[in-house]
C-alpha cells in the first residue's frame, strides 16, 4: 500500500515538473489557448454572477433608494471631478503655452476597453487579468484607467489576455504631480489604505482636496487622475513632505477598464 502511494506521489510530481518545464520551455501554448478561449469567457460569466450577488447583498443591507442615490451622486461627483481636472489641465497648459508663445493641442487618449476576468487569487499582491492582449495592441507598461482614474499598468501580455498590476500594490510607483500646486513626487499603493504621495520637496505646496495626476513617464501619459489629497504630513526637519491620497475608484469592484494604447493629437 505504501509502495503504491510512493509510486503515485512520484507520478504526480513528475507530471507537475513536466507542466512547469513546458511553461518555461515555451510549449505551454495549448494550455494558454484553452485558458484564453474557453476558461476566460466562463470565468467572466462567473465574475459577473459574483458581482451581482455581492451587489444584491449590499442592497439588502442598505436602503435601496439611498444606495441608488449614493451611487448616482458618486458617479456625478466623479464625472465632475474628471471635468474639473480636464479644465484645470487645459487652463494650466494654456498659461504655460501663452508664456512660452508656443502652442500644442491638448493630448487626448486612445483607449481600448477590456473586461476584468479575474483577480490574483491567493496572494496579497494586487493583480487582475483582463480579456485583451497582444491582439488588441496592448504592451507592457501601458496605463489602465477606470472612470478616467488610473487603476494600474499592464504587466504581462499574452495573445488574448493581460495581467494588470494594480495601483493599490505597495510595489506600484508612479511619478505624479499635484494639479493645483504642481508639487512633484512619487505615488505608491498602500493595500487598501489609499496611496502615499511622497518625495515632495518642502518648497512645494500640496493641499487637502487637491487632485493628484500622473506626471507622464514611459507609456503612461501625463494628466491621468490618480487620487485626491486627504491629508498632508510635513515636518520642518524633514527633507520631504508627503500626502495621503484617497482613491477615487473601488478597485475590488471594477468590471470594465480602459487601456491607454496611445495618444491622439
Amino acid at each position: 500500500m505504501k509502495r503504491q502511494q510512493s509510486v503515485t506521489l512520484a507520478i504526480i510530481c513528475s507530471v507537475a515538473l513536466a507542466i512547469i518545464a513546458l511553461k518555461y520551455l515555451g510549449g505551454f501554448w495549448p494550455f494558454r489557448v484553452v485558458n484564453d478561449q474557453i476558461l476566460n469567457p466562463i470565468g467572466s460569466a462567473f465574475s459577473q454572477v459574483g458581482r451581482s450577488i455581492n451587489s444584491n447583498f449590499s442592497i439588502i443591507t442598505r436602503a435601496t433608494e439611498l444606495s441608488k442615490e449614493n451611487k448616482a451622486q458618486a458617479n456625478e461627483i466623479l464625472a465632475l471631478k474628471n471635468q474639473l481636472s480636464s479644465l484645470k489641465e487645459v487652463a494650466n497648459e494654456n498659461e504655460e503655452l501663452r508664456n512660452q508663445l508656443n502652442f500644442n493641442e491638448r493630448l487626448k487618449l486612445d483607449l481600448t476597453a477590456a473586461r476584468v476576468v479575474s483577480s490574483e487569487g491567493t496572494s496579497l499582491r494586487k493583480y487582475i487579468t483582463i480579456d485583451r492582449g497582444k491582439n488588441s495592441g496592448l504592451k507592457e507598461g501601458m496605463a489602465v484607467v477606470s472612470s478616467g482614474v488610473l487603476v494600474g499598468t499592464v504587466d504581462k501580455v499574452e495573445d488574448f489576455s493581460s495581467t494588470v498590476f494594480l495601483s493599490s500594490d505597495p510595489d506600484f510607483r508612479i511619478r505624479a504631480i499635484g494639479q493645483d500646486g504642481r508639487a512633484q513626487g512619487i505615488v505608491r499603493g498602500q493595500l487598501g489604505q489609499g496611496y502615499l504621495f511622497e518625495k515632495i520637496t518642502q518648497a512645494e505646496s500640496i493641499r487637502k482636496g487637491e487632485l493628484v495626476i500622473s506626471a507622464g513617464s514611459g507609456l503612461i501619459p501625463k494628466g491621468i487622475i490618480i487620487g485626491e489629497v486627504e491629508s498632508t504630513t510635513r515636518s520642518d526637519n524633514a527633507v520631504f513632505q508627503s500626502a495621503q491620497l484617497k482613491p477615487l475608484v473601488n478597485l475590488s469592484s471594477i468590471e470594465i477598464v480602459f487601456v491607454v494604447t496611445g495618444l491622439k493629437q
Partner: protein
Amino acid sequence: MKTFFLSIGLIISILMQIFVFQSWQVGVVVPNVLLAFIVVASLYAKTEQLLWMSLIAGLFCDLYSSSDFGFYIGFYLLAAIVAKYLLKFGEVEFSWWRPLVLLTFMCLVQVLVVSVGLFSMLSFYSVTKIMISYVAYTVMIGLIWYLLMSQVDEFVKRLIVTRTMN
C-alpha cells in the same frame, strides 16, 4: 461517489477562488479557498485523489497568478502531503479543530512568504492587520468546507448502508 462530490467541491473552489471572491473581498483580502478545501478534503479523500486535486488546483492558480509559474502547484502539493500525514497522525476519530489549526498554520506560512516584503513598505500594524484578516477569512471558509464535507460524508455512508441492506 465520494470522488464525485470531491470533484464538485474542487471545481466550486477553483471557480470561487479565481473568479468570484475578487468581488467578495474583506478589506483587501481574498481568502485562500483552495487551501481550505485541500486541508479539509485530506480528511475524506484518498492520498492519490488528494494529490491529483492539489495538482489541478495549483495549475489553475498558477495560470491566473503573477507569481513564478509552479509556485502554487508546489505549495498545494506540499500542503496536501503535510495535511494527509499530520491530520491522521495518532488519531482514529477526526477532531473538528485539527484541520482548522493546520489550516491556520499553513495560511500563516503562505502569507508570511508572500508578504515578507510588505513590512518594509507598510507599517507593521497594517501588514499584521491584513495578515490576520487573511488567515481568519480563510479559516472561516475552512470551517464552512468542514461542515459541508462532514454532512456529505454522513450522507454517502448512509447511502452505502441503505444499498447494502437492500
